[in-house]
């Protein structure tokens, strides 16, 4: 067992990608394709009083110009099934049906789509659309809207306000307290691949290529808004050049492509340009977080308070749940975690890599560092003093937690013992040196999923689920799982995904794909294997005739007797002899680690023992989370304050590692994401017009190679006995959590200057 799981297998799609053969959504040649270019509002609040498309319509190659006046009417979606079940529709902007009326809610809202025979013609004509507005006074700053702040009860069906024990008593009992405010700015995902949709009507069927992290959610989005049955919509998303959350919800450009295709009576491709990637496909909310901590002299926390205020748009209530991690990181009897939001006249935020945890751990883990300083206590020791194996909010044990091992391994790898605790005390040549650390955490999500696995007479096999590979390695790990379940070599397996016609899978978000789809694929593979064995042992001409299933092992695609391995036959021989075109196994695992989704009966009749065993696990007894720690060394120029991250050590407890290579890449990528968050990423808006100022990759800074240090990734690697039969938890997001705080803590250690307002740019260290 476990010959393939965990191995640093190369990406199975690597060659396709580096040779340009992997087709991304914008790259599909569709007969008669036309090009749609969107025109966006240049005001933030008000309405269109005149929209003149006459010049654009007369421009060369233009087929149609769509505005709210002639756009196909959309259906207001009903109470769509929310949550994380496969097929749940998540509209990016719930209260804005695109291009249905003249109202403007944010700068960059789509007001027209120009469709032309070539991209250049469409771009040129888009510049000829003239829009006149009646402008109202907009509101852009949380600080200017304190009277409009409110407290939502729930976030996506989950409680979002937390109180336990007695906060003021806990604070009163504390020997040492801190009370500080931390601010994180708006950040944009900026995947390399921009959003892209190709929409083609085939009669009353809609064929879609869409850069989406959720093909079923997108299918539902098209169907609901256009008022048509889901069966008539087909969504394909074979490769994604990153998403980081901005391709999770259903955003207006996708439906606009379908509407424009209807109007133009031709297939239409809409690709957002880099500037457009900054206005209408979500971003991380700006947050203002007040954190107060109280502790006794030994560092035991007596009270935790974490109040987050984040901003959203007028057309969608998005809550950045920054305090969620705070409820479970440390043992503490008295706690208050609140989430407050305010609607501003800006575009809509959305999930961005570790939504909540990334911004929230910056605040709570900075605050823990401040508390450690005030207590004159080592930051690692402070965390150890408050260690808990039980989720203190849910009062349930964690399914498995090896965070202590993460702390000790990380401390050893960075050389923590040589750290002089006094700020601004360490130097290397001209540089000020600082060491910082922080805890990482992210929920271990799992959702229902289905899969099919087929064995073919040529000895090859395929696995399939409609899940997406957003660049994380889903193709590769699902191929590994399929091959291992069947007992055939990796090279003989291919995996199909990213197609709404395939078995159901959840959206690729919340780090849930590996733990959700993996068990379904495994169970489907075991089902196919079992069917093959049954066929063989019932076949009089088979060398395995008459044996029982438990007597049979499979290796290298060959079934053989456990007692006598000379007795056996290959899958290929069996299928050929029976003239079977293929043999198919299938499985649906109806499992969720989200409390409110527990105990939904699996409606499918389930004879698959792997599924039965998986579903029988008593998951509601446990809290499912991954943990880890980042240890960081920074160098700071003492004269002008430029910060250089010199080393990051990330040690993660994510259960079983499915693929050492892709797993390391995920954690490194997550930590690099956090370097951006800590030191440079910040979307700036014009204070007068509310328009994004930093709408290009020259103006919105993400780390370049020169910013990326030596990186070390370690995994504890102990299986989680409750999450899945394989024991692995998802890892797409945890690498980003905690790391910005670890860098900020290291900068404080180097300079003696505490920056509580990200990013830490040179001007803040003067």
């Amino acid at each position: 067992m476990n010959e393939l799981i965990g191995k640093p297998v190369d990406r199975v799609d690597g060659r396709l990608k580096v040779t340009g053969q992997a087709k991304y959504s914008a790259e599909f040649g569709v007969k008669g394709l036309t090009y749609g270019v969107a025109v966006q509002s240049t005001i933030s609040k008000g309405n269109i009083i005149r929209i003149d498309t006459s010049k654009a319509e007369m421009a060369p190659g233009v087929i149609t110009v769509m505005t709210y006046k002639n756009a196909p009417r959309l259906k207001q979606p009903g109470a769509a099934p929310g949550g994380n079940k496969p097929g749940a529709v998540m509209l990016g902007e719930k209260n804005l049906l695109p291009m249905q009326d003249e109202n403007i809610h944010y700068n960059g809202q789509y007001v027209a789509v120009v469709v032309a025979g070539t991209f250049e013609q469409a771009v040129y004509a888009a510049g000829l659309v003239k829009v006149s507005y009646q402008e109202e006074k907009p509101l852009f700053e949380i600080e200017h809207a304190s009277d409009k702040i409110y407290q939502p009860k729930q976030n996506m069906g989950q409680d979002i306000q937390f109180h336990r024990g007695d906060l003021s008593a806990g604070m009163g009992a504390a020997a040492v307290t801190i009370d500080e405010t931390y601010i994180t700015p708006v950040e944009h995902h900026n995947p390399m691949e921009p959003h892209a949709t190709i929409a083609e009507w085939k009669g009353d069927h809609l064929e879609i290529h869409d850069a989406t992290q959720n093909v079923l959610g997108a299918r539902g989005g098209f169907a609901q808004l256009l008022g048509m049955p889901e069966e008539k919509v087909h969504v394909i998303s074979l490769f994604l050049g990153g998403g980081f959350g901005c391709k999770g919800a259903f955003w207006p450009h996708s439906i606009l492509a379908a509407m424009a295709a209807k109007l133009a009576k031709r297939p239409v491709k809409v690709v957002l340009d880099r500037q457009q990637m900054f206005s209408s496909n979500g971003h991380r909310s700006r947050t203002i977080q007040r954190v107060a901590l109280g502790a006794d002299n030994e560092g035991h926390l007596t009270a935790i308070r974490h109040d987050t205020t984040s901003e959203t748009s007028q057309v969608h209530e998005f809550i950045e749940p920054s305090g969620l991690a705070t409820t479970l990181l440390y043992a503490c009897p008295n706690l208050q975690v609140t989430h407050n939001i305010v609607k501003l006249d800006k575009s809509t935020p959305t999930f961005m890599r570790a939504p909540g945890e990334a911004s929230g751990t910056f605040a709570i883990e900075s605050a823990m560092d401040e508390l450690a300083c005030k207590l004159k206590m080592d930051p690692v020791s402070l965390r150890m003093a408050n260690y808990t194996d039980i989720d203190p909010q849910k009062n349930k044990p964690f399914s498995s937690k090896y965070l202590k091992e993460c702390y000790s391994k990380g401390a050893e790898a960075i050389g923590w013992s040589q750290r002089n605790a006094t700020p601004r005390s360490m130097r290397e040549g001209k540089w000020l040196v600082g060491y910082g650390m922080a805890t990482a955490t992210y929920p271990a999500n799992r959702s229902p999923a289905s899969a099919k696995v087929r064995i073919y007479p040529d000895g090859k096999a395929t696995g399939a689920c409609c899940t997406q590979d957003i660049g994380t390695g889903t193709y590769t790990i699902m191929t590994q799982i399929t091959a291992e379940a069947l007992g055939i070599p990796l090279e003989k397996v291919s995996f199909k995904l990213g197609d709404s016609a395939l078995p159901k899978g959840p959206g690729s978000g919340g780090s849930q794909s590996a733990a959700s789809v993996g068990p379904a694929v495994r169970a489907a593979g075991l089902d196919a294997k079992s069917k093959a064995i049954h066929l063989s042992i019932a076949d009089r001409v088979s060398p395995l005739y008459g044996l029982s299933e438990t007597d049979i092992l499979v290796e290298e695609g060959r079934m053989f007797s456990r007692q006598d391995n000379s007795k056996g036959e290959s899958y290929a021989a069996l299928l050929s002899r029976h003239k079977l075109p293929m043999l198919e196994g299938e499985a649906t695992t109806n499992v969720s680690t989200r409390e409110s989704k527990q105990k939904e009966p699996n409606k499918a009749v389930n004879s698959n023992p792997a599924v039965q065993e998986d579903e029988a696990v008593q998951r509601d007894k446990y809290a499912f989370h991954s943990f880890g720690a980042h240890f960081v060394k920074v160098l700071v120029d003492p004269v002008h304050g430029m910060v250089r991250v010199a080393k990051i050590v990330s040690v993660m407890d994510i259960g079983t590692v499915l693929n050492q290579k892709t797993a390391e890449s995920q954690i490194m990528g997550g930590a690099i994401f956090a370097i951006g968050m800590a030191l440079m990423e910040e979307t700036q808006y014009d204070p007068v017009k509310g328009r994004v100022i930093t709408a290009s990759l020259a103006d919105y800074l993400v780390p370049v190679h020169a910013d990326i240090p030596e990186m070390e990734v370690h995994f504890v690697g102990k299986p989680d006995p409750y999450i899945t039969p394989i024991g692995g938890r998802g890892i797409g997001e945890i690498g980003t959590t905690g790391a910005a705080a670890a860098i900020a803590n290291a900068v404080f250690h180097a300079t003696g200057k505490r920056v509580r307002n990200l990013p830490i740019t040179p001007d803040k260290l003067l």
Partner: protein
Amino acid sequence: MLPFSFIHVNDADAAIHAAGPLDKFLGGGTNLIDLMKQGVERPPKLIDINSLPMQQVEKTESGGLRIGANVRNSDLAYHPEVVRHYPVLSQALLAGASPQLRNMATVGGNIMQRTRCPYFFDISYASCNKRTPGSGCAAINGYNRNHAVLGTSEHCIATHPSDMCVAMAALGAIIHIQGASGVRTVPFNDFHLVPGDMPHKETLLLPGELITAVELPFIPFAENSHYVKVRDRNSYEFALAAAAVVLHVQDGKIEAARIALGGVGTKPWRSEEAEEVLVGANANEKTFAKAADAALKGAVTHKFNAFKPELAKRTLMKALLQTQNAMV
């Protein structure tokens, strides 16, 4: 992007002859093409001058260097004469942009590079005195963290973005220009203009004129020169503040100094004020601090760039200290 015509020429006369008043010469295109895509630059004709024989770096009779306008930034940065005799120029070039951009960008194009002011770049803002004379300045009350603090006016606070030009300003380069009526030279520090009430007029170059070369004078002490750039990330980012310094110190006394600042001025900012403080004084931290104060004395800040004078002072301090081989 608007339709335009495109021609390719092989010599300077043909280029100048072909150039109408609104036409543009095309070098590496690393800035011009972006601006055309944005609709900021709208030349009716592009004249490709990449085949013009302006690719050479040659020693002049007086011991300086004559650099052809088509020399690529990368080639100039690694040219042995530049590396050895004008390290400040090599360092400034390598601090600019990214390797890919430097491989394309030319010396002439770098001199003609336009500001990165977001309000200049985005034509949806009606107010930009550079783009549309008399329309106002959206940056003054806008997000102006990257804007200039020296040489500004109430009409424009846009920063000159070049690193190379800061080094050339410090080195006192001379720009060679060819036009329909012949050739002329302009001292580097006169070439770029402060905005005043005509921010759209950025240089002394007349319509149809072509930069053919830049000449660096022979400066025997330029080997002791440094470029320091402070920015929000370690590569591919414009300066928050930058300093080019050339310092000649003998027996602890400063005999000569050339100082220029980047990231803070509306043009590549030669600071004669700082040079005056330095020349004749002892080379020490106190003198350097006084020079830095003098350089930023006239600074005018706005809402988001109030940090710039202090950061620029420290950047200049850092560059001056580096000429003393100090551990900084």
